[in-house]
């Protein structure tokens, strides 16, 4: 029985009517400072957080909540279009997600773009493969094939193979909905496409004609907003699957806002984490087996709030705060509903506002300097809901297995030019067998390689 998709839901979805916070709460100048330094720790003034709270305290929160009936199929197919429209503030008005360029960047454009990327000393970046429209999560096959998922407009899964030193990009699956999340385990390719996880056995031997897939899991909601997935796979072949709410900020149905650990062998699942908004990245710590994940915070509060997060699951079913509390210490102006942030698991690290941290991997290679051993390499996709975009970088976060001694460095930056121009949008990282890393870019439709030499 499919719990998430049918009409069996009795939940009522509450949401906020327009203009959550009065525009006078905004701090116009704050978002437009220069680029951050190469080494940074946690930023975000608690002062700002306190200011927002002070200004919104005493708002009759319940009065602003709007009721939605999620008790019918059409809600699940097409939830109200509030997730980037309904919560607009006057100050943030006009900011909108940018559509990807229709055609991938040409090799010449890519070369020109990469000249503008700044890296830590000793690191180099080059094009691994061009012409990979809307490239998203990557996974290695056993025999050296790089599988790559894609975003919505493309709807493809690619296989990149080496043919006599040349990288050849094959479209092996097409006409999927949003096949962002993929994984490879034991000869099989897994593709998470919104509400279905497909398994393609013996994939690498069949790149030119993929076998019919088995559906290994489908207890997932069918809506697209925050319905895109990322897959992490652990040593036992279990899949970590994020399930986001279909909105920016709302009390979404209880079968969402969580991360599950799915057993693709028998279709069972357990809830790993609750109170999670839009997570599109995570990895299993090679040291402890714990799951860590990146999370995108809500929009439409301001340019500088709230911060996106890096989280660490240390106990089954921990609650990470959404929709009540953001960034570990900012109660939602409307949805806190009496909850305190101390009730929830705080992030290991605040990553900064509107960074859009997506794919991440623990660095298990041996090419990079010793300080990068087991560091989390994280791709920041970059903002849309901010006047001066943040992100567009690869950051390296060293942290011990308990989540202490956190240090963040910017490994590569420069994919955002001026206030709102993308040269590219890094969204995933994977470690190559030689210890270099590959970076997927869905804006330019390309895969880059970052290597290190003394």
């Amino acid at each position, binding site marked *: 029985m499919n719990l998430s998709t049918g009409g069996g839901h009795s939940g009522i979805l509450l949401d906020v009517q327009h203009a959550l916070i009065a525009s006078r709460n905004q701090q116009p100048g704050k978002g437009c400072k220069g680029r951050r330094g190469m080494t940074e720790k946690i930023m975000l003034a608690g002062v700002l957080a306190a200011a927002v709270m002070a200004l919104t305290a005493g708002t009759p929160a319940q009065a602003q909540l709007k009721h939605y009936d999620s008790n019918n199929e059409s809600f699940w197919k097409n939830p109200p279009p509030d997730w980037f429209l309904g919560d607009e503030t006057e100050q943030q008005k006009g900011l*909108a997600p940018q559509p990807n360029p229709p055609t991938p960047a040409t090799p010449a454009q890519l070369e020109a773009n990469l000249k503008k990327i700044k890296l830590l000393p000793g690191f180099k970046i080059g094009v691994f493969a061009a012409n990979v429209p809307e490239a998203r999560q990557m996974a290695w096959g056993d025999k050296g094939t790089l599988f790559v998922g894609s975003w919505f407009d493309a709807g493809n899964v690619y296989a990149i193979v080496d043919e006599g030193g040349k990288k050849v990009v094959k479209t092996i699956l097409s006409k999927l909905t949003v096949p962002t999340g993929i994984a490879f385990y034991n000869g099989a390719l897994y593709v998470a496409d919104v509400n279905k996880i497909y398994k393609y056995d013996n994939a690498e031997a069949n790149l030119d004609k993929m076998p019919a897939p088995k559906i290994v899991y489908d207890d997932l909601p069918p809506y697209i907003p925050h319905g895109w997935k990322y897959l992490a796979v652990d040593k036992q072949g279990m899949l970590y699957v994020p399930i986001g709410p279909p909105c920016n900020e709302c009390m979404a149905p209880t079968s969402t806002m969580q991360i599950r650990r799915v057993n693709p062998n028998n279709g069972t699942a357990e809830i790993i984490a609750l109170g999670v908004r839009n997570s599109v990245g995570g990895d299993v710590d090679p040291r402890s087996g714990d799951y860590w994940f990146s999370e995108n915070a809500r929009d439409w509060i301001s340019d500088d709030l709230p911060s996106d997060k890096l989280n660490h699951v240390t106990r089954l079913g921990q609650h990470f705060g959404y929709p009540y509390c953001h960034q570990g210490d900012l109660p939602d102006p409307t949805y806190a509903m009496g909850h305190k942030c101390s009730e929830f698991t705080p992030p290991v690290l605040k990553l900064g506002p509107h960074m859009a941290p997506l794919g991440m991997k623990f660095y298990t290679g041996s090419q990079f300097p010793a300080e990068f051993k087991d560091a989390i390499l994280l791709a920041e996709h970059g903002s849309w809901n901010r006047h001066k975009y943040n992100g567009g970088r690869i950051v390296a976060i060293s942290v011990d297995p308990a989540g202490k001694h956190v240090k963040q460095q910017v490994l590569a930056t420069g994919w955002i030019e001026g206030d709102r121009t993308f040269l590219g949008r890094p969204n995933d990282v994977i470690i190559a067998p030689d210890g270099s890393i590959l970076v997927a870019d869905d804006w330019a439709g390309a895969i880059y390689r970052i290597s290190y030499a003394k």
Partner: protein
Amino acid sequence: MKRRLSLCAFVVAAIAGALPARAEDDAAIKTKLEPCFACHGENGISEIDGVPSIAAEPDIFLEWQLVFFRTGRVKSEIMGPLAADLSDDDIRAMGAYLAALPPINTPPPPDDAPAMTAVGAKLAASRNCGNCHGEGFHGQQGAARIAGQREEVIMKALHDYKSGARFGTGIAAMPEVVGQLNDEQIEALAHFLSRQR
């Protein structure tokens, strides 16, 4: 309003600037577009039922439609085969050329259903169509110019988003929008928008 306009102009300029110098000159691309104008009308203003006007649409919107037809992401018995062999360069040049053509400027035919126009106008405002489709519904970024588009084309498009035959760019904005509209509302919107200039 001011901010949205300047943001839009900025983004469009940035993307145009990122494109390589076009090898094809206007004349060459015009020749390639001639068969297109046979259906889409002289200068891209269609006079045939079911064929959209394509003049003055945003470049990004046009290019995406051609990419969708090429990959089969949007099924069209007519446009599918026509787009199948277009190269990325063709698509970029065609998008840029068509986007620069002047929009429809002939006055709309006399309004046979002003009450419907009024309903459509209200809906377009309350459903925030202009947030994405821009000032005067003239289109911006990935969102089409819907002012002055043919009435039956708008109706078909909205039904296609509803049935899932079309998703649209980015984050499925249009399926979410039409998910909340009934047939009468779709009709009223098409009636109103086709009369805008």
